[in-house]
């Protein structure tokens, strides 16, 4: 391995990441708690109700951030997969492993919050709206990712296979989204458009912004927690994990 990559490997080494992330965690946890707490109270109590939807619109403060992250999470996973395929970096594979169930959980939340928002707004829990349908396909993509990893008994092969799948999915997601949009415009059911951010009142929009930022921080926090657990699981036989467990020279 060429010398210029050595720093990259040291930084990307699982124990190095484990130690460094230990310092970040408290800050991330405090930031996530503060942002989500403020956004939650602001959105639930202080933001004015929507003129047409009344108070049910307050679901937006969950639904929109979670939907953003559901999609962004797939790209995080695919980027980690690409790094793993190109540089054969173990840490990237661990991040990818951690990102799949996390993304699936967020996608599920996006669908759930959309459904219970749909009932008072459209009078039904489920409509084949373009955005909801795309989200459903995204959930399937995540579930495929999780299932593929579980199918392998060999972790090294599983990592590379999942990386290929994530990259193929990344090429496909824009096509899927566009095609579903096109399909929806073809059928044109008469429904209210859910969110139209530019026309939102600033008093409603500001807490949403806080919640979005809060959820991004929360995502980073959980991704790191999961990656750390994955690191320990895979390196449990190594000296540094034994030292950590025995409480020797670690923080």
């Amino acid at each position: 391995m060429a010398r210029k990559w050595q720093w990259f490997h040291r930084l990307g080494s699982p124990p190095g990441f484990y130690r460094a992330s230990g310092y970040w965690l408290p800050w991330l946890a405090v930031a996530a708690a503060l942002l989500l707490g403020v956004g939650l109270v602001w959105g639930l109590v202080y933001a004015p109700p929507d003129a047409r939807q009344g108070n049910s619109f307050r679901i937006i403060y969950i639904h929109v951030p979670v939907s953003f992250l559901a999609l962004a999470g797939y790209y995080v996973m695919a980027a980690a997969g690409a790094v793993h395929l190109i540089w054969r970096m173990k840490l990237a594979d661990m991040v990818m492993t951690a990102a799949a169930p996390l993304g699936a959980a967020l996608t599920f939340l996006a669908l759930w919050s959309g459904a219970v928002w749909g009932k008072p707004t459209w009078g039904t829990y489920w409509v084949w709206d373009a955005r909801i349908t795309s989200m459903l396909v995204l959930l399937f993509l995540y579930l495929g990712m999780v299932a593929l990893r579980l199918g392998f008994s060999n972790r090294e092969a599983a990592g590379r296979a999942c990386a290929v799948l994530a990259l193929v999915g990344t090429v496909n997601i824009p096509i899927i989204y566009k095609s579903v949009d096109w399909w929806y415009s073809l059928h044109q059911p008469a429904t209210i458009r859910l969110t139209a951010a530019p026309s939102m009142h600033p008093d409603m929009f500001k807490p949403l912004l806080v919640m979005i930022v809060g959820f991004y921080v929360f995502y980073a926090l959980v991704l790191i927690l999961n990656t750390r657990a994955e690191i320990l699981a895979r390196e449990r036989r190594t000296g540094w994990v034994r030292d950590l467990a025995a409480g020797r020279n670690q923080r």
Partner: protein
Amino acid sequence: METPELPGLAAGFGALLRRDLQLAWRQRGQAVNPLIFFVMVTALVPLAVGPEPALLTRLAPGMVWIMALLGTLLAADALFHEDFVDGALEHLVLSPQPLWLLVLAKVTAHWLVIGLPITLLSPLLGLMLALPDAGFMPLLVGLTLGTLVFSLLGAVGGALTVALGGRSVLLSLLVLPLYVPVLIFGTSAVTQAVAGGGIGGPLALLGAIAALALAVAPFAAAAALRAGIDG
């Protein structure tokens, strides 16, 4: 020691294509099964929803496309797995020929054995489901392109799961979401034609997807095979 010459790309592609067609012919009973499935399940539709022609006409494009999708998916499972079981896949992976080329040869054979016959059978199913005359041409053109994409993406899924247990279900789970755009454009070409509209748009998009799949899927499947072989 004189070394024999390395066969060219065309010779490599041709040899594998020829082999797979030869195998399909020797085991034609097996190759015909997805086609029988295709016809049989379509025959169940009127039994399930009732024989009114108006209803069948409405369902026809979607039904024929979904059956074609399932038919190709059934066969994608065996695409690489048989070669994996008898060890021939090792020869493919260790050939000095580029692996994507060999994948392309196998996909071509798969399409010729499964996708093309399904496409050619589809007018028959259109008749069974009371598809109006205007729908047949877009159905044929759309399925020609669509089954090619199904085979290409099926190859990626088949390569990822080549060594795994519970393969066929997992393969469907991986590949079905990727089939969504093809299904959308394919069915709407037929629906729009039946409604008297233009079909250039969806068919052009289908062609673009097929071109993209042709450019990307062989490489993805080759990378997937190198990982998947070690399940």
